């Protein structure tokens, strides 16, 4: 890195640090819902990516509606779109649990196949309903461009927005799981389903709400990703591999592990991307994860449970 002035390098360093944090927030956002479904309930939901897509399409629909009927509302619609994305994804998740998942709790391998089939069906429904071409939501002006704290440093505003949303959502999930009565029931069911049932917790209802909540969070993630990328029928499936990677690497069942794993994978990848090509960085990240998982198969943070 010769021939660059100290201030130039400092600027790049600052922006590079933000690139890492930004990637971290994206990872957390997409993994949070799955961490609840896969981590807490043990359901391998291959259709998780499609719930992201549902959130994204809801946002796009909202943007079209806002543009058509309430142009003056356009600067603020995005906040409402996120709420709508949550509600729609939550509702569909609720239905999917009721119609399909609850019959398969004792058959994890069948769940994998069934949800994978569901993901293909959903992709084709998106394609038939919204067309095969990718679409974009119209972003309000305040979400575009960059913020310049000092000359030469550009921090993307959509990155900041995703970061803030991630922080908010993480806090909400934390309060829900660890500070509310519902969270207590969820954790009790996770730890010992029979005992939880015996003390009067309606475990099927807990399952349904937990699953739907995970899907709703995926919907919010999908809405947030419309600020980063476009939306197509298969957009969600792009994220599924990374999502599982983050959750498994962090240790299924541990929310803290999900954060730690998202942070380390994001930082490793963004630093390596800076010094080598993007594909090579990805390969090295995956290789490191595989080696660590070989040494610690239970992931970074393992929850001690009686088998």
């Amino acid at each position, binding site marked *: 890195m010769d021939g660059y002035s100290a201030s130039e390098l400092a600027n790049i360093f600052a922006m590079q640090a933000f*690139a890492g944090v930004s990637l971290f927030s994206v990872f957390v956002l997409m993994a949070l819902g799955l961490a609840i479904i896969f981590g807490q309930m043990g359901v391998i939901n291959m259709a998780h990516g499609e719930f992201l897509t549902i959130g994204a399409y809801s946002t796009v629909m909202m943007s079209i509606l806002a543009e058509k009927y309430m142009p003056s509302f356009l600067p603020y619609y995005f906040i409402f779109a996120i709420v709508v994305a949550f509600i729609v994804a939550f509702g569909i998740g609720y239905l999917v649990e009721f119609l399909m998942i609850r019959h398969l709790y004792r058959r994890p391998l069948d769940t994998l196949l069934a949800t994978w089939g569901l993901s293909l069906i959903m992709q084709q429904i998106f394609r038939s309903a919204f067309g095969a071409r990718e679409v974009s939501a119209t972003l309000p002006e305040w979400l575009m461009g960059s913020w310049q704290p000092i000359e030469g440093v550009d921090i993307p505003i959509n990155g900041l927005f995703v970061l803030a949303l991630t922080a908010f959502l993480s806090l909400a999930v934390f309060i829900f799981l660890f500070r509310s009565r519902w969270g207590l029931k969820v954790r009790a069911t996770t730890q010992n389903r029979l005992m939880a049932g015996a003390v009067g917790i309606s475990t099927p209802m807990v399952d349904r709400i937990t699953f739907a909540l995970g899907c709703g969070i995926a919907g919010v993630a999908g809405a947030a*990703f419309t600020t980063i*990328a476009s939306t197509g029928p298969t957009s969600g499936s792009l994220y599924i591999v990374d999502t599982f990677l983050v959750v498994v690497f962090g240790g299924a069942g541990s929310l803290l592990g999900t954060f730690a794993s998202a942070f380390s994978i994001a930082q490793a990848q963004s630093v390596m991307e*800076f010094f080598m*090509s993007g594909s090579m960085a990805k390969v090295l990240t995956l290789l490191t994860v595989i080696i660590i998982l070989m040494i610690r198969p239970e992931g970074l943070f393992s929850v001690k449970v009686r088998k």
Partner: protein
Amino acid sequence: MAVALGAAMLLGTMTAASAATLPTAQVNTTGLAVTDTTVKVGILHSTTGTMAISETGSVEAEKLAIEQINAMGGILGRKIEIIQEDGASDWPTFAEKAKKLLENDKVAAVFGCWTSASRKAVLPVFEKDNGLLYYPTFYEGLEESKNVFYTGQEATQQILAGLDWASRELDAKTFYLVGSDYIWPRTSMKIARKHIENVLKGTVVGEEYYPLGSTQFGSLINKIKLKKPDLVFGAVVGGSNVAWFKQLNAAGLTFKKQPMLTISVTEDEVLGIGGENVEGLYSSMKYFQSLDLPGNKSFIDAFKKKWGADSVIGDVTESGYLGPWLWLRAVEAAKSFDVDKVVAASPGIEWEDSPHGYLKVDKNHHLWMKTRIGEWQKDGQVKIVYESDVIKPDPFPAGYQ
């Protein structure tokens, strides 16, 4: 049939229209699906799966061309019937469907394939069964088959003219190459690097590939900011494309500050990216929707009439439109549907007012065509800033491999 032929001869009017009277036995000696009134052709694209995004436009254009040919009286007096198959974005499925079209349906020609991978998958089938494929996508070159006509650009037609223009007009000396990680961008960048280093005497300050579908480009954008190349030369495709431009824009790297030339952005992509994110970007293509040519005007009118007023038409869609018309000309010149005769009659076919202007079929089955540089505007259309001479296709460029 013999009576009809005799009547035509008696009248002595063997014009193109009366070619209709040519008996089936004469125009079809190899058992293709040709009757006295119809001829079957295949359309083989992905209408499901991840590639449906890109291939839909080609299907629409091919159907439009066939409908127009039928409205003009068909081909050798026979109406074209379409058998459409779905490759489902899966390369073995493409091969299987190609086999079905050629061996069961005996189609006279197939219009189809989009990715190089799908073309490579069907190529052995077409060569074995002696089929005829019109392939619409701009691609990496390094291929020539008796059974395939390539109606898009091979790599040098798109790249060399574009780089020459950037070197001359933008005074570009340092270049940063960015692409998605698969065969087309890698081959294209290899050609670009050779041309930059050996012909333009410039420097390549970076060359990067990102996995297909990648949506995080923060680190790459920082590297570009640090190196400050005179030109970023890009071939990022698909969903990644959208993320890439949105993030460039969000990072304050507008194309006024950082000129960028791409070979992968057409009107179709801009629909997803949004015009405001590509304002000032340059694309190197043979066709843009805003080309002010008589052939283009009638093409766009017909396309919008059939497929909706807000359709956008990109380079590959236009290439798809060329296929059936080139086949029509070759068949009429050969006065036969036999693949060997159609192939033999094809080289040298000229078309003055195609939607992108003059074109000619070369002996190597690619097209002579112009390359244009377009500057993207906020409304998602381009302003054409440069137009080359007609360029000879050169799928195996010497010194670039």
